[in-house]
């Protein structure tokens, strides 16, 4: 198991390096010249050459890539002499827009994305798993049919549509909720919840729907398994049969999918953050793409990739813990 984890960690590093390389190449071949972008409006050819040198853009691409990777692990210095700028570990470069370190931009925005992801996840686990289990146990009932109709709309409605409808109903019509604005959850928990509730519901609607359908299907399969019949043959009360024997087996795959979804959202919920004006990682990506802010786009891409790849690793390990038949060597 330890050997497996070590092997996987090495693979994770490799994957991230490849992603890094691919993004790097994409931006290198992009027609927009970063130096011109960084330079702004009033620009002279001398100034551009200077910036190119400062950013290391006059060096061969493999050298640039090497510098970039080294910078992530050891920090780096841009430019030389008077103009030298120190970029400490973990260095993802500076934004062309405001010259702030990409890493600190990400760190500023991580709490927002994490707030959205974790709150929404708690909500959709509760609603999705609960609705799925109850639907499966009462298959064909009015509850089941109703829940599945709602779930179908949940998976088919686009997130921006749900978000706008929620904003319209709760903010504009009912005036129940202030316009979502992120606040520190530790200093103002109530304000945090009221600000986050609409983004949470937006995401949770989609994911609850997906999870309810998955859970229902899983429970229906599991409750028809022979081992569930064995559990009943032992005389176990129905609650134990459902929870210990049914849900344990039905929810294991759902939980592993959950790990991947959560990892993905931690890397930024682009649409939700943008619609609600939440300054999260996703919104950062959106703005950076609009301004072709290459270091920021690179940084966000790597950051999101890191969460996804890592979530996959954790899920695989979790699976081996949850299902004794799975053995990694």
């Amino acid at each position, binding site marked *: 198991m330890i050997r497996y984890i070590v092997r996987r960690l090495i693979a994770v590093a490799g994957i991230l390096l490849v992603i890094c390389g691919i993004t790097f190449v994409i931006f290198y071949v992009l027609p927009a010249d970063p130096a011109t972008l960084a330079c702004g409006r009033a620009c002279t050819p001398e100034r551009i050459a200077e910036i190119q040198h400062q950013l290391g853009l006059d060096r061969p691409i493999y050298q640039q890539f090497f510098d970039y990777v080294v910078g992530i692990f050891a920090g780096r210095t841009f430019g030389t002499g008077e103009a030298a700028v120190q970029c400490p570990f973990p260095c993802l470069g500076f934004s062309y827009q405001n010259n702030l370190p990409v890493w600190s931009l990400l760190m500023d925005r991580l709490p927002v994305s994490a707030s959205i992801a974790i709150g929404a996840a708690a909500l959709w686990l509760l609603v999705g798993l609960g609705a799925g289990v109850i639907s499966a146990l009462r298959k064909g009932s009015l509850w089941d049919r109703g829940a599945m109709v709602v779930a179908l709309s949940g998976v088919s409605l686009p997130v921006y549509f749900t978000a706008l409808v929620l904003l319209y109903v709760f903010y504009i019509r009912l005036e129940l909720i202030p316009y979502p604005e992120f606040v520190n959850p530790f200093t103002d928990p109530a304000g945090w919840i009221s600000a986050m509730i609409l983004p949470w519901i937006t995401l949770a609607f989609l994911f609850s729907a997906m999870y309810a359908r998955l859970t229902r299907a899983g429970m229906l399969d599991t409750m028809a*398994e*022979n*081992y569930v*019949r*064995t*559990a*009943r*043959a*032992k*005389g*176990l*009360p129905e609650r134990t049969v459902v929870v210990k*024997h049914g849900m*344990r*087996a039905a929810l*294991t795959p759902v939980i592993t999918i959950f790990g991947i979804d959560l990892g993905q959202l931690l890397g930024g919920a682009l649409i939700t953050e943008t619609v609600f004006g939440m300054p999260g990682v996703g919104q950062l990506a959106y703005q950076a793409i609009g301004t072709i802010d290459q270091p920021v786009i690179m940084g966000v891409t790597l950051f999101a990739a890191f969460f996804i790849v890592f979530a996959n690793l954790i899920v695989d390990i979790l699976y081996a813990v*949850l*299902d*004794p*038949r799975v053995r990694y060597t």
Partner: protein
Amino acid sequence: MTSLLEVEDLRVRFSTEDGVVRAVDGVSFEVDRGQTLGIVGESGSGKSVTSLAIMGLLRGRFTVEGSVTLGGDELVRADPDFVRELRGNRMAMIFQDPLSSLHPYYTVGNQIIEAYRLHTGATKRVARKRAVDLLGRVGIPQPEGRIDDYPHQFSGGMRQRVMIAMALACDPELLIADEPTTALDVTVQAQILNLIADLQEEFGTAVILITHDLGVVAGVADEALVMYAGRPVEHGTLRQVFYEPRHPYTWGLLSSVTRLDREPEHRLRPISGNPPSLIDVPSGCPFHPRCPYRMLPEPCSTEVPEYAPVNGGHLVACHLSEQERTETFARDILPRVQSSVRKGG
């Protein structure tokens, strides 16, 4: 004196989208302590549904009629919680496929202990000790070392032993084994059957052994009940059903017996055709479309044969006269069975 288990005129129906399935249609039998009843029939003849109905384990949209009495307690109309309390305690069941019947995520110890603690309220330590004893008793080597293993770490035969240990955890009065050896290798089959017989002798359990294979019943049962299309067609002592069978369907089964001591190619011919759908049971005698001795159209396709005692006292449902039955058996069946026994032996 009444028997431990009395099943009377049991009828089970399922309503499905395709129609009403008459899965069990008028089955009666008794089993007493220390006795083994073999229920035999091809797949789809209602054997499993009969046992699940006794255990109160039927699922889906079904109705049960008739009565099941265990040690004086009527179960069909009883409170489901009352029946649940009996399950795993006074009556237990083992199933055909031990791998899928054991929970893949829990150790075998956990699964045995769970049943024992539920009904006895024993502490974890006591229950664990009991589980080790049981695993040893059913022939699992080094039970202390295996109790924390998962089902997938055992072989098929060992898994079935685990199932048996689990079923016996609370010393049940009645054990129903539904095709306990069908999924196992031929060599292991005999071991499992012997184990069940040994344990039965030791604990005085009443056993219902369900199989599609008359040969399996021959080894261990005291009585045999042959079912076809959800109905009983022949019922008597092992001697009567196995050596003096009087129903053409039983003859067919006898000709397709698996002999554990013989290679498959020496086995006899199976009955031609397939068992009917239990939604559309053939008129008259349900076996008539496949019966080589049928009398058509009357009475076999028009009248349901009476299920009545024949000479010698066992029950048979067939229109053939006593004389026809005895003669046909002596002329057609006996020589075939005997010659093949000689050939194979």
